[in-house]
């Protein structure tokens, strides 16, 4: 039993590690310049020279997928960081201190979390104006805040009642220190899986937005944008869709396995 649970985590870590390593390499080196055109024949199938073939401009798809995945990764990480930091801050304060502010904020939050994040991001981006990379991050980041706030609030509120927190309070430790040192580390079992889920949501949401052409725009290729480009060539160059789609799937799959593994480990401990 125990072994199996770790299997999920291990597989996820290996897969994600592999993908991230590949992407990191892509930041410094790609087989071809991702934007260089006519590196080979147009719409050429996979070969040794072009691992994933070439697109309509004769650009190397493998290099573009690496670069696109890099962009996707950056956006997703930035989004999750933003959503989690703000969300946890709000959740921690309201959860720990409670009171009427907590009550009011959480009512609002209930309504906001119910709203699907991609719709939220769409609305925000329609206000910010589409087509800019940082706007995508901002829109998705804001859209993710409520869900993190809710998770953090529950965790902080329950840990507030725990003995070691109570004794710290009696010892006169400042509330900030209690929040930061005593409670935060103990919320990790709940927060970590939430982070992985958030990451995956961010990747998928970014892909959807790019597909709707209100996300990242060329020449900043993201996997979602490439995928929408690939749809028009599904019969002429199926490897394009396979490359871009495969990268998204593997990335999300790997992180998903990690999340699943973390949750199981947690459950195993409980």
């Amino acid at each position, binding site marked *: 039993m125990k072994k199996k649970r770790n*299997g999920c985590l291990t*597989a996820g870590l290996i897969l994600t590690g592999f993908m991230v390593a590949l992407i990191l390499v892509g930041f410094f080196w790609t087989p071809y310049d991702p934007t260089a055109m006519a590196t080979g024949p147009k719409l050429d199938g996979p070969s040794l020279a072009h691992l994933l073939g070439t697109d309509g401009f004769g650009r190397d798809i493998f290099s573009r997928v690496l670069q696109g995945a890099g962009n996707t990764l950056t956006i997703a990480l930035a989004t999750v960081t933003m959503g989690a930091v703000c969300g946890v801050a709000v959740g921690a304060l309201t959860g720990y201190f409670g009171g009427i502010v907590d009550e009011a904020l959480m009512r609002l939050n209930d*309504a906001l979390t119910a*709203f699907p994040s*991609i*719709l939220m991001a769409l609305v925000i981006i329609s206000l910010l104006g589409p087509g800019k990379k940082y706007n995508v991050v901002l829109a998705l980041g804001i859209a993710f805040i409520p869900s993190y706030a809710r998770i953090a609030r529950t965790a902080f509120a329950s840990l507030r009642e725990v003995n070691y927190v109570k004794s710290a309070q009696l010892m006169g430790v400042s509330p900030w220190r209690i929040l930061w040192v005593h409670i935060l580390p103990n919320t990790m079992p709940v927060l970590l899986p939430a982070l992985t889920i958030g990451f995956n949501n961010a990747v998928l949401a970014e892909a*959807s937005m790019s597909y709707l052409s209100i996300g990242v725009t060329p020449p900043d290729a993201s996997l979602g944008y490439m995928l929408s480009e690939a749809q028009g060539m599904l019969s002429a160059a199926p490897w394009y869709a396979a490359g871009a789609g495969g990268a998204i799937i593997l990335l*999300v799959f790997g992180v998903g396995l990690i999340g699943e593994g973390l949750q199981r480990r947690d459950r195993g401990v409980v």
Partner: protein
Amino acid sequence: MKYAAKRLATLLVTMLLVSLLAFLAFELISGDPAEIMLGTQATPECLAALRAEMGLDQPLMVRCLQWLMGFFSGDLGTSYHYKQPVWELIAPKMAVTLCLSAISFLLIIVVSIPLGLLSAGRSGGRGEGLRTAVNQLCMAVPAFFTGMLLSWVFGVALKWFTAGRFPDLREDFWGAVQYLFFAAVAIAIPRIAMTVRMLRSTVNSEMGKDYVRTAISRGNDRGAVLRRHVLKNAVVPVVAFLAQTLAEILAAGVVVEQVFAIPGLGRLLVASISNRDYPVVQVIVVLLAFWVVLAGTLADLIQQRIDPRLRLGGSL
């Protein structure tokens, strides 16, 4: 009943708040609608005239009240882009989107509840690893990618439906349903995976509880225990989850409608966003929010029917 009344009151207040927020957000950030409407042909005189005509020269609070009153009395305003009442624009699209959501939701329930129950209580079996992998994989594929493949395979290669020819809902209802089915599959797959996973863990944790162990150790049939006791307790969180799913279907629909060229709310929303047609965006957003809040309230009401303890207080 008191609980229901209280919940309905909250619902109304939330709706009012949401509409107010939508109005203010778009009003404050979106810039001058008259300028957007006139585009390149704007001259100061034209602008002033149009502003007066649209009532933009009135103070913000007055306009806000007017918008709210209009909204709740059925006057949803006029589209900048189409110069049509927003309601006329939205109504036919809404029917399509509701159909699509309904089919997706049915699919999710029909497929995932049996699958989830069957897979529950068998953790640690031989297929465990594979099952987890398939489950996670289903969640990892973006709905629009599945949609792309489905519409290519069934709509272009096999010609089970004609990709791009969406029949009019009123003229050919079954044809439309058939068309929507494939889009619904694309939307449903990741949600099915999530629901199965959710069901499984809920049922499993319930099965581990003392009363179940006792019941089984007394010699009751495992299946009967599952049906009679476990399901009843497991259903509470599942209802909440499904309410959330209802909202997410709508979100996934926005993208999938684009893939299948289905004339629904999602496409109108995306197009209106790039046209800066704020009255339309505003109304769609508020309607979607209503939908979401309504689903949540409904879930709450159903839950407290099943589990009266919830009436006493607090959120879960």
